[in-house]
């Protein structure tokens, strides 16, 4: 019975994964002289994805950690708030990140020896007055080098961490290249802050 039980457990495909915080380094970047309020609501802070049946990945706390560090590399002054109403006076930009979709690919599905995670974020970028600047979709991808010797849980966590790091990298690389943001910065420079 013990052997049968162990075999059944071994074949089970369920996994409940929680990504640890403090998995992300501080960024090497010169922030610009902009004050931004980043709205991270309760759902974002406690986000749990269900990419497959019987698989859940909780990475709310981890993504708060990642985005806080990444935005610190973009803006001189970053305030993390729960809602738009909490944006402090003097804020230039309000950014509301949200998770649109999470996908997971396992070796059982892909016949590759890796776990892969895709996360699609949306960043709603507004002025402090609530005028929309852009809604920017940010896709991120992560995979394990290989899944040999890794438990299913550790492999999914590893791939999620790589995907979150990729999201931070894309934000820092491309945020100021968003045409609407570029135009907003030019207008701001002309008018003055």
């Amino acid at each position: 019975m013990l052997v049968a039980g162990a075999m059944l457990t071994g074949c089970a495909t369920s996994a409940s994964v929680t990504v640890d915080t403090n998995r992300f380094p501080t960024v090497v970047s010169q922030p610009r002289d902009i004050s931004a309020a980043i709205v991270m609501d309760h759902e974002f802070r406690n986000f749990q994805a269900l990419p497959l049946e019987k698989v859940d990945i909780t990475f709310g706390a981890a993504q708060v950690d990642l985005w806080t560090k990444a935005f610190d590399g973009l803006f001189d002054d970053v305030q993390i708030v729960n809602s738009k109403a909490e944006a402090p006076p003097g804020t230039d930009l309000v950014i509301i990140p949200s998770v649109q979709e999470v996908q997971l690919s396992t070796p059982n599905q892909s016949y590759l020896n890796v776990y892969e995670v895709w996360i699609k974020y949306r960043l709603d970028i507004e002025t402090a007055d609530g005028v929309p600047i852009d809604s920017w979709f940010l896709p991120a991808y992560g995979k394990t080098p290989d899944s040999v010797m890794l438990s299913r849980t550790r492999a999914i966590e590893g791939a999620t961490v790589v995907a979150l790091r990729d999201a931070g990298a894309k934000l820092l690389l491309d945020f100021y290249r968003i045409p609407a943001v570029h135009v907003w910065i030019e207008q701001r420079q002309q008018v003055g802050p």
Partner: protein
Amino acid sequence: MSFSRIVMLLASASLCACASTTTIDDYRPTTELIEIQSHEKVAVLGRRDAGHYETDTGFIECLGNQLDGSHFDVVPEQAFIDALYPWFEPRTAPKGIKRLRNLMSDPVVKAKVAQENIRYLVWLDGEVESAGHAGTMSCGIGPTGGGCFGYASWDKNVFFEAVVWDLADLTEEARIRVDSEGTSYVIGIVAPIPLLSPVKSQACEGMGAKLRSYFAKEVG
């Protein structure tokens, strides 16, 4: 099969299994040794941008260990990537000297590299491939015991390329390619006996020795 034939098969297979061929090609723009101060460090990184493979992490560690015995320190791959996050992630890592110069023109990145005392970067790209599987082996278990009988072999090909970048002068200092191939066997005579060809370790040792030979013993 008589006992003497089995012994002969084992002995010949052992001899063959140890055989592997390793070829090292290198290119340097100059014959002068690469200067490195004792406080300066070398980082060994693997390429991660190819879709179908990632540079073998075991090989990266092995090469780091090969270089770590020199008079300079080697920065572990993850420590370097974390220290310069996000500029050496798969999405952002510079693929050529031109992109490296662009990256290092950012004063914040340049200051961080200087703060970490990292002078040279060794980019590794390559993989280990197995092919040519042959033979069969059967294993069984019964009331009186179990065992394997048969023979299996496969070829292992290893290729890696290392490119050395100088992070101070922003130049390419060297390029080394190592190819290694060999055949591994498993012979099943009750217990399976693996006779593995050490292609990866030989490629690593060869590349490590070549890289070490480029660096001046001590300067300043």
